[in-house]
């Protein structure tokens, strides 16, 4: 349906944006829309499925079709859309708590199922929306209302986890570098399979320690994805904070190719077809 040339603006729906001033998620929204526009995908052919959290509100600002799901369930919903409507461009989006905490089981299975969807995680290392509790990516020692004596649980390394689950495309970006991020998202959308894009997207209210400056100082840009497992593990092992496309394998959508949709109206007599299936 790509008949008209679209711009990022066409993707806005006019809803007032209620993130805090300075929140990293503004940049993610903008980059996503720019990436989609750069690929000339029509807004009505996109479905953005988001989780619950500050990050999850992104669905409300998407001028195409959007599903604002429940906490941790964006990936199952997104896979449901894609499996039944492969013609659509499907993006799942949410926070670190949503995706790596309550939703991490779905991430593992989405990665190995490898449907052609793009998963954009706004990783701020905190539960922003519920006012600053420790999240699965909060660093060791992180102090918050739920870990006043310091976080003692090893943080999740999304790059390692998604890869270990079989993700065919893993990238990391930073909302402080929009040009780079836009390009990552575009690559993720173009990748034919499951792609995870983890984005350092600062929460300027509840996680001030991991703000823009922090990331600017720590991140290292990677130009080419690792070519084997050992290299990959080397590249992503902390303290390295790589950004770029880090892993890419060229498997196709792992499900059997979808044949064109048929229905009663389109010829087959369903009753006769069903009779042939019964003993």
């Amino acid at each position, binding site marked *: *349906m790509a008949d008209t040339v679209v711009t990022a603006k066409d993707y806005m*729906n006019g*809803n*007032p944006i*209620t993130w805090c001033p300075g929140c990293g998620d503004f940049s993610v929204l903008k980059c996503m829309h720019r990436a989609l526009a750069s690929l000339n995908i*029509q807004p*009505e*052919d*996109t*479905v953005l*499925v988001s989780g*619950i959290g500050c990050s999850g*509100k992104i*669905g*409300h600002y*998407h*001028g*195409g*079709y*959007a*599903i*604002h*799901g*429940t906490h941790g*369930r964006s990936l*199952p*919903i*997104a*896979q*449901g*859309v*894609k*499996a*039944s*409507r492969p*013609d*659509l461009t499907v993006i799942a989006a949410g926070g670190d708590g949503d995706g790596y905490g309550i939703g991490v*089981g*779905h991430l*593992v*299975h989405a990665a190995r*199922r490898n449907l052609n969807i793009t998963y954009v995680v706004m990783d701020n290392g905190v539960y922003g929306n519920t006012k600053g509790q420790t999240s699965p990516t909060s660093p060791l020692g992180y102090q918050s209302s739920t870990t006043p004596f310091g976080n003692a649980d090893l943080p999740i390394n999304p790059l390692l986890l998604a890869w270990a689950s079989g993700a065919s495309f893993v990238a990391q970006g930073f909302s402080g570098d929009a040009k780079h991020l836009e390009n990552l998202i575009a690559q993720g959308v173009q990748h034919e399979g499951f792609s995870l894009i983890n984005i350092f997207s600062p929460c300027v209210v509840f996680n001030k320690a991991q703000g823009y400056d922090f990331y600017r100082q720590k991140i290292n840009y990677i130009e080419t994805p690792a070519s084997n497992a050992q290299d990959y593990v080397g590249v992503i092992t902390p303290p390295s904070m790589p950004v770029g496309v880090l892993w890419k394998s060229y498997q196709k959508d792992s*499900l*059997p190719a*979808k*044949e*064109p*949709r*048929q*229905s*009663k109206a389109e010829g*087959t007599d*369903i*009753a006769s*077809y*069903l*009779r042939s*299936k*019964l*003993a």
Partner: protein
Amino acid sequence: MKTAALFGLTGQGIETAGEILSNIMRSQGYTHRAWRDFSTIIRGGHTAFEIYISEKGEEAPPPRIETIDIAVVWDDEGAKRYLPRMADSAMLFGSMNTTMVPEENRGETPKLGFNVWSLGVIAGYLGIPFPLLEDSINQHFAGELNQNLAHRGYILGQFKNKGNTVTNKLSDLVTISGNDALSLGAIAGDVRHYFGYPITPASEILENLTKWLPPLGGKTVQVEDEMAAIYAAAGASYAGERTFVASSGPGIALMTEALSYLGATEIPLVIIDNQRGGPSTGMPTKTEQSDLQHLRYAGHGEFARIILTPTDVLDCIAVIQEALNLADYYQCPVILALDLDLAVRRVSLPWVAVEQAIRSVTVDRGPTLLESLPIEDYARFHSVDGAPPVRTVPGIKGGGYVASGDEHDEKGFMEPDFKVVRETHHLRRLHKADQIEYQRPLSIIGNMDAPVAIIGTGSMSELIENLVKRQPEQYKGVLLRQLHPVPVESIVNALSEAKTVIVAEYNATGQIRSMIESALVDRQIHSLLRYNGEHYTLEEFQDSVTSILSAQKELTRG
């Protein structure tokens, strides 16, 4: 009616033997009904197969009854179980392990050939031509040993064949279970995608659709859990594709949060609960109707839903199609509550009946906008005069909107003035299915003016139907198909002059009775409850009904 039973251990192939027998009877044109007693033990638990064969060429399969004409048992456990049910104890056969079986009815059979030997016995007794049996056995188990075992059994059974012969009764029968019927109906209802997770007794649906959808351009996905299943289905439904989910108690319970989400977002979805014995993992292979109040209320907050309960295998074919239409129209969860017995009950019946059920409902997407007409200023949740709002699907230009579980306004905007939207949008969404337009809320069985009405649904229906057939002066049946919203008027009309009402249900608390209470005022109400997981035989059912009524008489007298 002729009835036969087979009893042994799981792992002995009792189920397969049952299937072969059923296949033969089907090909011979006998409508019938099978009943299986499942064990959770994969190898070594006790299991039984019973078959109820109509001899009169009736189209409707017979119900489960008490009297067993011939039984073949592996051990005394089986003898104990079946002797009390035998019309003639001389018709009990068994392996050499048994001591309670008449000596001349015992046969040498290895543990793993028992099923084939038993098949022989029953086929001999029923007068099935041996070559027919031979063929079927060859298809499943090659090897001379099996042929010999079958033959030895056959001789033994034939000996007792008192003139049974097989003649073609009806042509073109098919054997289907409740789960098969749901699968057929779903496809007829335009479902092409299905997301499922295995669980007894709903796995069959996933397994059927996995085979049946791909040639139609559809597919199934085996997902990681039931939450993934219902949310994926919600995604597909949002995307405009018809789908549904099916599970049983534990899996349905895991879908609770999603029910509320579907309610809030008005994404249409059909949810099937094949109820088994609860609570918790409970009795996973036993039948129960004990999730009904859960299905009525599960989910936080307040939202509309519809609950339908198919009454027999054939009915499942139509009901799921109707449910898909209702979901598209009312844009809310439509729940189908079956119980295990109905879900796994296998019946043989004429294909024409099945075909008629398949064609009985037309796909109606309601106010779903599938064509790509450009829309101006679309408001997804805007209703004109209370009618269901128009729903777009992705791909339609100008139809984009966000479906959010956060409270929203008619455009889907999530930070509305709650004081306004709760009085308008929320109330519309909440009350939209308080009254539904549904043509078949219940079926009335028998004479309108019978003094006692028996209400029930699901697997209970066959018992009610056949009891009414036996005593039409005394009883009429009301088979409930619409459980929520309660079809008060239809029930009141159906009960008509019946002052005494028995609500028969497979649970311990009388859930159906409580749910339809408002339709039962001013009647003498009794509950007939069973919750041990086993489907009644007709005679057991009849006895229970009779003793309830005589207790009432006692009371009236006393």
